[in-house]
């Protein structure tokens, strides 16, 4: 406006030229702004799950599908957030980082890697929630919302635990079982029936008794630990609760490595039967990733009755050990610090 006023006041054509230049720049800015951020696609690739406090890479692939027009100054906003805050302007995401592309030529693609850090456990979304550009002159920012995202589960943190401080079920073989099963200890003998595996025939006794006798074996003992995790607590006990989750997850890993079957009980998920596979461990971690603390107003849950192995109660808030059968051992963080 000032230049226009000067132009009309002086009648100087070169000032009119300056005015034309300024208006031309604004016009060009609008034209370039309008045609930027069009006709492109991007994809992301991210891990399905990571542990708390671990860094992970998110790979962004940007493709320009224009035949003639390049793209300039693209700012991709990668966020790690829950569903509510993924597009929210009021709620901050868990983490946000920008990836910037200076120039993307026609029919070309570029891959950018962003490293994010999982700072909180739970189920989140990782992806691009907006693409922006200040091209060409930063007069106006063009921003397009994006909905490219993957689910990511942030598992509980795993800390190093000294296995000596952990309760273990009795060693293999110290308790015999009285049930028949697939094992190696002899349980009983019986007559051979058609269909029985011939290699289990006790040939010596069969020869002595002039009849075919089959060996039956005793069920092998499976060491089992069942974790009793009461998630009820007060609001100011959140840090202790997180430590308890970390402790439970780390202890599960130690037990699983030692060949112990792990089960877990929480008020919400109920009792997850023990198993010693790594897949089962992952399942427990997934459950622990989503476990939430509940208020003490919640009614007393029905604690489980555990039949096999030992049960371990995570004492994280100095509450009385619940009465369940059998009486669980108490595991506090101090024990394993």
């Amino acid at each position, binding site marked *: 406006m000032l230049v226009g006023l000067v132009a009309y006041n002086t009648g100087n*054509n070169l000032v009119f030229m300056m005015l034309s230049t300024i208006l031309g720049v604004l*016009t060009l800015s609008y034209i370039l702004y309008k045609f930027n951020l069009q006709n492109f696609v991007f994809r992301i690739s991210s891990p399905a799950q990571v542990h708390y406090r671990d860094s992970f890479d998110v790979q962004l692939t940007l493709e320009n599908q224009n035949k003639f027009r390049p793209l300039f100054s693209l700012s991709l906003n990668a966020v790690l957030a829950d569903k509510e805050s993924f597009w929210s302007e009021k709620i901050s995401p868990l983490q946000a980082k920008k990836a910037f592309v200076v120039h993307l030529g026609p029919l070309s693609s570029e891959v950018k890697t962003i490293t994010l850090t999982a700072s909180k456990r739970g189920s989140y979304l990782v992806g691009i929630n907006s693409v922006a550009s200040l091209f060409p002159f930063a007069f106006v920012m063009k921003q397009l919302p994006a909905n490219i995202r993957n689910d990511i589960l942030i598992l509980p943190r795993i800390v190093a635990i000294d296995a000596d401080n952990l309760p273990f079920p009795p060693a293999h073989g110290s308790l015999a079982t009285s049930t028949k099963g697939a094992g190696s200890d002899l349980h009983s003998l019986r007559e051979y029936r058609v269909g029985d595996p011939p290699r289990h025939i006790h040939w010596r006794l069969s020869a002595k008794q002039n009849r075919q006798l089959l060996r039956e074996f005793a069920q092998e003992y499976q060491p089992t630990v069942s974790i009793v995790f009461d998630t009820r607590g007060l609001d100011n006990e959140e840090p202790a609760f997180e430590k308890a989750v970390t402790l439970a997850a780390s202890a599960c890993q130690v037990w699983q490595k030692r060949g112990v079957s792990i089960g877990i009980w929480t008020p919400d998920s109920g009792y997850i039967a023990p198993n010693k596979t790594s897949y089962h461990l992952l399942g427990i971690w997934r459950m622990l990733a989503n476990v939430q603390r509940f208020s003490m107003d919640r009614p007393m849950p029905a604690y489980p009755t555990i039949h096999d192995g030992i049960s371990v109660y995570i004492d994280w808030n100095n509450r009385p050990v619940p009465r369940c059968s059998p009486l669980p051992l108490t595991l506090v963080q101090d024990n394993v610090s």
Partner: protein
Amino acid sequence: MLAAASHPRSGQCIMSLQSTPFPLFKALSAKGNLTENAVGLGWVMMVWAFFSLFATNSLEWYILAPDAFFLILALVIYRPLHRLSPTKWLGVTALVLGLIAYEYLLTRQVFDAALHLIFYLQFNKFCTTKLDRDYPQLFMLCVLQVLATTILTVSMMFMFFLIVFLIISVAYMIVCAARQSAGEEAEHSTGMFNFRFWRYIAQSVGILLIVILALFIAIPRTAMAKVFVNLNLGTAGATTTMSSFSDNIEWGHTEEIQLNESLAFYVWIDDPHAMKNNKSRLDPYWRVLSLDKFTIRGWEVSSNVAEKTERYNIRREWPGFIPNPQIDFKLHFYMQPEVSRYLIQAENMTGMSLARDESIFSNLLSKSISLKYIPKDNYQYSVFVHRDLKSGAGKGEVPALARILPDEFEHLYLQTPYSGEQLAVLQNIANEASRTTKNQFEQTQSIQNHLLKNFKYTLKTRDKGIKDPLIHFLTVRKEGHCEYFAGSMVMLLRSVGIPARVVVGFAGGEFNAKKKMFTVRQSDAHSWVEVYLPKKGGWIRFDPTPADRTTTHSNFAWVGKKFRLAKEEVTFFWYQQVVNFNLSDQLSFLRNLHQSANVMNNRLNAPNIMPSWVKELKIDLSWTGRKKSTSLNELVVPILCVLGTIAAVVGGVYVFRRSRRSPSLQVRMQHEEAIKLWRKAQRIFHRWNIPMNPSDTPAEIMERVNIKGFPSKEFVECYYSLRHSKNPRIHELSRFQELFKILLSSQRTPAAKKN
């Protein structure tokens, strides 16, 4: 903290360059990051804006020197300056502002002080750049400086500076915008010069120049008066003129000027009627002012005449003057800087039009028009000239250009310092030359002819030591230049009682018949005589100098002359089409467009083009209130234009939507290729005895194949994308073909079968 700093909504991103050195070449290379690129381009932009001031050719060294110092300082010790704390910068700023204020108090020049201030602010912004907003602020300061240059000059060199400034500043703003977008990555992102950055800039600037030209032509000009009359930003005028035309001219001044071939001014004849009947024959005498008082040393304007100077405020047009195109035509003058404080006039001038509002000083007696100052830039204005040269009667409203000499002032033009013997000598010469004349006019003509025939022209007068050069010229030397001839004639006429005066100005110039313009140089400076003859209508011009003043002589070599003429032609085009572009030019441009449309319309209306029944069709337009009826053929062109526009728009939309609906040829080819490869793969699976039902999807089939190490999922995704997507990803087909080859080369029997 990290999340907050890198949130997309945050407006600021604090960048630090403290650890970044500022080598200029690295900053402007592919090795520099975005921040370095911005800093480097910023410095180049500042330097170029500074150099644009040279286009004005009007700023003194003491204005430019400290500013050049700032620029060099910014380059050499950028890093230490960037590390200075804000407190120290405050101190430096206070010191500099104090110096600028002191300079203003001394010189009272607002513009110079403002220019220094702008330079310092640029320097400050450049060296303390930390925030995103600092970059556009530096840009605006450079634009302000270029704007200041615009106000000072109309030089064509300025156009060159402006275009280059445009390129640099567009690049700078784009880099800054990219830097702002990148945020924290700006110091790691590769710079802007590792792709065809300048090609894109050139394309953008090319489009920009077209848009600027269109806007320059389209922005409506007005002939309105200045809104703020007293708001002027021009600097003080020059102190001397190149032509030395002033109220006091001593002997010998003309000699130096006539050796100077530099340009004085252009005159463009704006006379449409001349094209038809060639009537605007112009005597190329360009009047500056007249001198009435003669001393032994030279000629000057006497105080009696000088006190008759009156001041006028001209609002671009001479007040009250309305030109008549049948009687008056226009001459456009384009004066070079520092030619003269006096505005050059033409014979029979009836009015004047200035490019801007001015205060001018007009003198009734000396018939001069002058400015308050000697213009330091190119000065342009227009004069109206009476077409009837023979009548010589300038009957315009301009009082300063009167041809009548009031009686009370007649004695001023009879004044002579000579008496006694010297006066007698003059009288004898005058009487001898005009022995047979009957009246004053014939007497004057005789004296003129005497000088023309009996005296020679030369620039070498060798007057050193001569007490009275004029008498010496008339009696002894009998050769001299125009000053001597004019002065002598005036003295001779005055000695016999005929009022006369010396007029100084320019005469002749190179005439370009094609462009109808005169190119007048300093060497065309001339003196002639005006004689007051009441019976002939007033002041009449006589030129006693024997040399032909309408032709120029150039000592330039042929090549140099051609180049000079070409440069002057371009310069004149610049003045004519750009500097002098005004409301009437805009209107004539629109008229030309309208005429072109009419010509096209007339051609369509030619008898052998339109059928008669079309011509006879009448359409009643009475509802428009403009015409009662018009024939259809008058509407053919507008109807065709409208139909053509509608057809183009509809066709374009149809093609666009069709292309979006249906896949392009390339996409269709990819579809077919993907289907062909999948069928081949199915045949292979069949050979491998993999059960396949017609209802099985490719994903289900691939699950059964289960080749160890083969990316089945990706294979299926590629196939789906090529087969069903309208915009398959780039290089999808090549990837699919690659996976197919891997499939072919894998083991014939799968590692495990899935039930």
